[in-house]
């Protein structure tokens, strides 16, 4: 087991009170596991991804722990986290198109980045070339500026950079959303390839795109309104989801591969509750077709079978 997240709480500070974007999230990730993380916009999945790597200015670590390879990550302390970033936890951000400094040659940027972590560039240079070849990029791109690269090239370049130090955990956030369909496939394959070659021990793939998740993920976790709704092996989640939300989510898609994007799901009436603060009980209650009296109490995220956990009174 490489990653263990225990009752993680991360709130956003706003002038009108805390937004409980992550409100007690518990899960773990096995070695070599690729976990897909899905949910509507604003459900907290990107917050979860950021929490594992770097909290942004308005996020506050309120409680819970994150343990990676037996070591607890100081996620609330930006400076101490630096030790783990890149080498232990790394990220392929959703903005890969603009993730590289536009005014530096890519090679130089990598050299400065690596150098700033106290690692001589020369020691990783040959590995860098090998990996560029692995994702189908020419070593010559290092001499270029980001603007001279196509979208797919930039995406792959960022993947190479992010995984350069063989991190234990890689968070890939919406890595394909900006790409066209054919490039998406290549990028997805490359991601899986990193895991297969053991360049990355485990991976969390955050996506709107269930087809991508279906394609590369071993397990899928569904989030709703700051909490986990369901986690299980990919086939189980896709074929026999137990949480009503997951069921609606899957059934709302006419076919796999269509994005549900930022728009409200047509099939699920109502909208997610405000998280400032969230209502008591099951957060899906208001929209849930199966809701009943018990739902006024918050359901636990409990295993119903090995490797398959659900937070729903109806499921247990």
């Amino acid at each position, binding site marked *: 087991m490489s990653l263990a997240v225990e009752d993680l709480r991360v709130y956003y500070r706003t002038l009108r009170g805390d937004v409980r974007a992550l409100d007690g999230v518990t899960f773990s990730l096995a070695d070599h596991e690729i976990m897909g993380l899905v949910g509507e916009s604003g459900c907290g999945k990107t917050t979860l991804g950021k929490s594992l790597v*770097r909290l942004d200015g308005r996020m506050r670590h309120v409680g819970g722990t994150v343990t990676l390879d037996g070591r607890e990550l100081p996620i609330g302390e930006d400076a101490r986290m630096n030790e783990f*970033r890149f080498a232990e936890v790394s*990220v392929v*951000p959703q903005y890969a198109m603009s*993730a590289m400094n*536009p005014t530096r040659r890519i090679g130089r940027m990598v050299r400065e980045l690596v150098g*700033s972590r106290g690692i001589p560039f020369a020691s990783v240079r040959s590995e860098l070339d090998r990996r560029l070849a692995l994702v189908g990029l020419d070593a010559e791109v290092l001499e270029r500026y980001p*603007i001279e690269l196509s979208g797919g090239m930039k995406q792959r370049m*960022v993947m190479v950079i992010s995984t350069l130090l063989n991190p234990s955990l890689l968070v890939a956030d919406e890595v394909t959303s900006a790409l066209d369909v054919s490039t998406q496939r290549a990028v997805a394959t490359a991601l899986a390839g990193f895991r297969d070659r053991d360049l990355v021990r485990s991976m969390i793939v955050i996506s709107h795109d269930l087809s991508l998740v279906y394609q590369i993920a071993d397990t899928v976790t569904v989030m709703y309104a700051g909490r986990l709704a369901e986690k299980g092996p990919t086939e189980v989640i896709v074929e026999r989801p137990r949480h009503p939300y997951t069921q609606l989510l899957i059934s709302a898609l006419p076919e796999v591969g269509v994005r549900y994007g930022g728009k409200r799901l047509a099939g699920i009436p109502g909208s997610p509750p405000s998280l400032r603060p969230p209502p008591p009980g099951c957060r899906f209650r208001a929209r849930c077709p199966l809701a009943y009296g018990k739902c006024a109490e918050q359901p636990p995220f409990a295993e119903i079978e090995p490797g398959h956990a659900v937070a729903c009174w109806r499921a247990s």
Partner: protein
Amino acid sequence: MARYFGRKLLIYALTFFVAVTINWLIPRFMPGDPVRAMVARAGLQTPEGVAAMREYYSSLFGFDVPVWQQYLNFWGGILRGDLGVSLLAFPEPVTSLILGAVPLTLGLLIPAILLSWWAGNKFGAYAARKKVLDNAVLPVWYVLTATPYMWLAILMAWALGKVAGLFPVGRPYSASLVPEWSWLFITDLVSHWFLPFLSLFLVAFGGWAIGMRNMVIYELEADYAHYLSSLGAPPKLVRRYAFRNALLPQITGLALQLGVIVGGAVVTEIVFDYRGLGYLVLEAIKATDFFLLQGIFLFIVIGVLLANFVIDIVYVLVDPRTRAGMGGDR
């Protein structure tokens, strides 16, 4: 890249054309006849004398040919570097008056622009990352940019010059000195230069610092900055990148602000009785010396255009995005 420069040059050429035409046109539609003014000054009584003088000045100013030819002659004169004869300092050519004043103005402007740009950017970037400092100095900078150049100059001249007596006020160097390369003369020159320089510097400084502070804050929120931080890059590296990238719009800003700073130099010179172009402008306005005013205006336009072009080149050198052929319109 050729297209980029071609386009720029076209714009500058058109601007120049427009400026020259406005410049030529306006005095011809305005009341007050320079020929009559010159003749009046001679105080001639006899009509024959007046007529002779009038004819002489008309031909000297080129008013004795058809209007279209006057326009062409005006262009011809510009291309030959001949901007006509000053009325105020007749019969001195406008060009020589301007060339006499330009070194002083440049001596004020170039250090003031470059130093304020440099220091403003440094300070702005520095303040952007210290919340407390930022809150403390930002209002000061805003007050500085909001200060009229001449008022700051008057305050400086009054407080530091007259009251405290730290610096001399007025003229570029003491009246008793003969310009030469001596320690005495140079210290005198510098002490006269300092206050006008400082007042120009301060106002411009505030603007640059604000611009840089805003740009750095914006850049620090840029994706590449977040990415670098996510990979554990130390803040130093992130800030270095942000600073460098924030500088780029500031270079463009330099081009945009040139005209304004030149204007500032004009009024500052007036306050300090510093005998550069600004002083000449006032002279020309007071004496309604059309030709001198035209000449100075053209000179400023040419200067600003040239500086713009230099900045364009610098921009291309420092920003790879323009070189990649993307920034046709920056």
